[in-house]
């Protein structure tokens, strides 16, 4: 092969790798692939001879208890549980709590080893902890049990990176369940304002280019500035009866600000673990690109409602519903609330797209995994429910009721594709990156980052000082190195 051809192939390979971001970087290892192949083989053998009714016979009369997040993803399956109960005779009881309470209850139950719950939803932030502590059990033994494996499990249907980051943990990694709630961040913008001829003309006059969906963060800043108006000024021909803002940001000392800012850190300096750690888990949180990204994020608060310094994600969607904000980086699963005409003044007026790109295409995603606790009293029955609730048919029904899809089959269905924000979601997943959830210390790391992000945007310290402080505290926790020595 000619030298020039080799160089050409290398350049093409590099370009493809960059273009596909984190998704191509996490192929199955040979052991993982062997497990999946074996499960597929069993599924194939079971085709036509396995039935849920038959498999569930030994567990008839059992009651499964599920601990889940108070989310649409957990509301939706409950509408179809009666089908499962009718087929199997296994009863299902759900308990749902808001995020913080859910995590408290989950950890306390795991630590006490009560065995009350047969299935628990675990945020991927806690998966390294609960698997490392042995609170939940791997599901490979169920996947390889011919008596319990549904031939229609369709394991190829799961996006590899999503499933891996969410549910595969340990060394060597084993599956602990399936994704159950997996929001990703996209760009929300007011399409009606962006399409308004007067606004377009005014924008062009000021910035000398067309008003369009921002492709980079310079444009994002221009648009945020442009749409920030005072009460009494005009917006799309109407006189404003209250102040209007170009952008909505989450500034509360909360994970909402951490997740939002991580998009900027990742597009500025690369998305490995959200721009926090490198491949060796050395700390890069205070790298120059992150400092720049933090300074930029802080500067955007000029165009965000004054109250947004105290916002977490819910108040951001409320601001859209109340028609006071033009753009935001937001979680896709909250888009349903924005598109609900009974709750939102802007339903039908929204546009959705990818997060602008500074250098790298990115989208920060969060995820939850179904798990079966080690102390669960009915693990086999729990597995049967887990398979059933994640089957293509039920997953599609749930997605149509507002649950975020995990399966490609559901994403590709015409009904889901027709939902306004789903095309952007699907594209965003191509560049999705997680936070450093592989580290059990991440819970404390996230709290530290949230503290110093708010200190920086409250001008109590500079961006450099804040991130240096985070780096030092993370190093103490992780025991790894700081790649960029603190400057302050």
């Amino acid at each position, binding site marked *: 092969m000619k030298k020039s051809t080799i160089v050409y192939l290398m350049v093409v390979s590099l370009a493809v790798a960059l273009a596909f971001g984190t998704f191509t970087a996490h192929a199955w290892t040979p052991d993982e692939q062997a497990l999946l192949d074996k499960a597929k083989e069993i599924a194939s053998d079971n085709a036509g001879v396995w039935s849920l009714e038959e498999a569930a016979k030994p567990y008839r009369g059992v009651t499964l208890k599920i601990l889940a997040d108070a989310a649409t993803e957990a509301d939706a399956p409950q509408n179809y549980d009666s089908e499962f109960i009718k087929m199997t005779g296994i009863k299902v009881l759900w308990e749902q709590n808001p995020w913080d309470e859910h995590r*408290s209850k989950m950890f306390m139950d795991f630590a006490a080893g009560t065995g009350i719950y047969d299935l628990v939803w675990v945020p991927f932030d806690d998966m390294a*902890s609960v698997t490392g502590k042995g609170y939940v059990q791997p599901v490979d033994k169920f996947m390889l049990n011919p008596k319990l494996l549904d031939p229609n499990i369709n394991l190829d249907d799961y996006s590899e990176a999503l499933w891996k980051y969410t549910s595969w943990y340990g060394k060597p990694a084993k599956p602990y369940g399936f994704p159950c709630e997996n929001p990703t961040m996209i760009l929300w913008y007011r399409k009606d304002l962006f399409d308004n001829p007067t606004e377009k003309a005014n924008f062009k006059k000021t910035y000398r280019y067309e008003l369009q969906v921002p492709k980079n963060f310079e444009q994002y800043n221009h648009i945020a500035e442009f749409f920030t108006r005072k009460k009494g000024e005009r917006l799309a021909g109407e006189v404003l009866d209250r102040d209007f803002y170009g952008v909505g940001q989450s500034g509360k*000392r909360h994970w909402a600000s951490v997740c939002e800012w991580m998009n900027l850190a990742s597009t500025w300096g690369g998305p490995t673990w959200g721009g926090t750690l490198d491949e060796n888990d050395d700390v890069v949180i205070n790298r120059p690109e992150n400092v720049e990204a933090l300074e930029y994020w802080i500067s955007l608060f000029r165009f965000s*409602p004054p109250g947004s*310094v105290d916002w977490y994600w819910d108040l951001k969607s409320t601001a859209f519903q109340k028609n006071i904000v033009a753009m935001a980086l937001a979680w896709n699963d909250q888009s349903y609330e924005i598109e609900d005409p009974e709750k939102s003044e802007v339903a039908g007026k929204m546009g959705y797209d990818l997060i602008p790109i500074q250098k790298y295409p990115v989208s920060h995603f969060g995820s939850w995994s179904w798990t079966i606790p080690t102390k669960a009293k009915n693990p086999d029955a729990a597995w049967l429910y887990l398979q059933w609730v994640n089957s293509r048919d039920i997953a599609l029904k749930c997605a149509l009721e507002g649950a975020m899809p995990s399966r490609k089959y559901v994403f590709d269905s015409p009904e889901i594709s027709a939902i306004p924000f789903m095309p952007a979601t699907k594209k965003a997943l191509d560049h999705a990156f997680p936070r450093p959830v592989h580290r059990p210390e991440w819970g404390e790391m996230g709290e530290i980052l949230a503290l110093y992000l*708010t*200190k920086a945007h*409250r001008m*109590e310290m500079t961006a450099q000082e804040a991130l240096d402080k985070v780096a030092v505290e993370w190093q103490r926790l992780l025991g790894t190195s700081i790649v960029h020595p603190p400057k302050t």
Partner: protein
Amino acid sequence: MGLLIPSFGQDKEKTVLKRKYTGYLLLLPTLALLAFLSLVPFIYAFNLSLRDLNLRIPRLAGQFVGVDNFRYLMREDSEFWHSMGITVLFLVVVVSIEFVAGFALALLLNREFKGKRIVVSLAVIPMMIAPVAVGLMWRVALNYELGIVTYLLKSIGIPMKEALLGTSATALATLMVIDIWQWTPFIFLIILAGLHSLPKEPYEAAQVDGASKWKIFRLVTLPLLKPLIIIALLLRVIDAFKTFDQVYILTGGGPGNATDLVCMFAYRTNFKIWNLGYGAAVVLVIFLVILIVTAFFYAVTQKKEEEVV
């Protein structure tokens, strides 16, 4: 008979002994329960505080580390001391204002007038609301864009450039105002009850001696109310030190760590970071501080009683 006398004496002795121990025996179940409920968790927490236990981090599985957690807390954890500092500031400000305002309100309403019962009932409503509900109510009211408080402040000409909970200075002050709004009625109610129960004779004697109203207040009312004042202050100081619900709901300790009162700090350490060993050390130090405060107030009360005797 001669035989009966000692026998009678023994019976009497037995009866006395029986009476003496019956009381203890009857108290024993309650005492045992109380000891179990207070001592067992304390011993458990103390044991935990000597260990490195984190429910999230597999390698921190409860190894014995001696007093390392206390050493780090005392010498290196600047966040804890910051929390302790603002907690002391918070309690000094709120308890002082609540005391003065509650006392003044009680003096003002310590007379008969039409509708007194309604006024008193309305005045104590804030303290009857659960702190969580108070937090949620104020969260809505303080919303910068949509809340009634911002609207009212703007409408009377106060420039509101930022959300009240959005800046370090105003966030803590706002929490103080909410606490004062909720707990001034508590002081008011105790003092009012005290004023109602005061004997009339000292007042009549003072009036006969021609004492002014101020002198009567200073030399009669205040000394007579002193035990009640001490109890009211003790309860408020302990309660203010333990303030958590409003902080959790309204600010989460932010912005930055401006409102990170010590119980919020303890909550985060224990139930967000799940560092239970270190968290137990934090909780024990909080307990110790409250114990010292209680002992101080108790000593003051005892001194007063000795003076009276």
